[in-house]
């Protein structure tokens, strides 16, 4: 049982707002990584959607940036317990990128430059739930925060919003990604506090 440190409160914001259970508000934007920041030049960047065998869609940076974009403001909830409210982004909705794509797959494995992956049910990426974001707070997304582009799926814990995203592999069956294969919850709903694989 830990002892209480007299006078210590940590880096927490004064106002609380409505947060998912177990979260703390932060005024900063912590940088959390499982590896070195990949540096991907825009002339080599690409984003693909494949089904494990065939590439179904491919964009290079130019064709990606010619897609219609949206600006949106969302709250971020990290499983390490910090939450950041009201963050402003610009990105391409996954509805746009999946337009007219027919698939029987129900699951997606999101892949990043480097070796990071995360799994998300396909329906959680659709219907205005997810974007490939490339601008944060009015500026180009910095490499340390996932630039040139990252996935944003803010209704799930932030580890699902893969930084340095490079593509999506459609799967018929769910397969755990990087953290999901090491004790973290397969779905990750912060409002039901689904942090770990043993959580209901």
């Amino acid at each position, binding site marked *: 049982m830990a002892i209480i440190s007299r006078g210590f409160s940590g880096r927490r914001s004064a106002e609380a707002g409505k947060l998912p259970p177990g979260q703390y508000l932060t005024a900063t934007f*912590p940088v959390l990584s499982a*590896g*070195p920041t990949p540096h991907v030049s825009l002339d080599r960047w690409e984003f693909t959607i494949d089904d494990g065998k065939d590439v179904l869609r491919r964009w290079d940076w130019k064709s990606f940036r010619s897609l219609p974009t949206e600006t949106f403001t969302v709250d971020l909830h990290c499983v390490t317990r910090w939450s950041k409210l009201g963050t402003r982004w610009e990105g391409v909705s996954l509805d746009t990128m999946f337009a007219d794509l027919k698939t029987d797959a129900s699951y997606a494995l999101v892949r990043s430059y480097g070796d990071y992956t995360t799994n998300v049910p396909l329906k959680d990426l659709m219907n205005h739930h997810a974007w490939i974001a490339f601008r944060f707070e009015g500026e180009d997304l910095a490499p340390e925060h996932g630039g040139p582009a990252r996935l944003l799926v803010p209704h799930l814990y932030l*580890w699902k919003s893969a930084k340095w995203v490079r593509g999506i592999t459609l799967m018929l069956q769910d397969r755990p990604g990087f953290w999901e294969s*090491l*004790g*973290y919850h397969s779905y990750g709903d912060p409002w039901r506090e689904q*942090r770990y694989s043993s959580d209901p």
Partner: protein
Amino acid sequence: MSSQNDDYLDGNAAAGELSKIFAIDVTAAEGRCAHCGATGRFAEAHLYMQGPGVVARCAVCEQILLRFVTVRQRVFLDVRGMTYFSFKATEP
């Protein structure tokens, strides 16, 4: 080969967390990277530990040596990235 950025610590920084499962000091332990075959002390591994878990990477090739997550009273350990992890034996 060195990283393009120096955002990592080293095996010394993770030794406290790893003491949850290894009763003896891991920093002096030797390991062999399963990807590139490099051997070295765990103290020299590149550690990324600010995220949901601890990730140790080979200082030569940056591939993952081990991953470690603490979930309440349980720990999850993945050492697939090492061909071996070698410690000095101690008398029980």
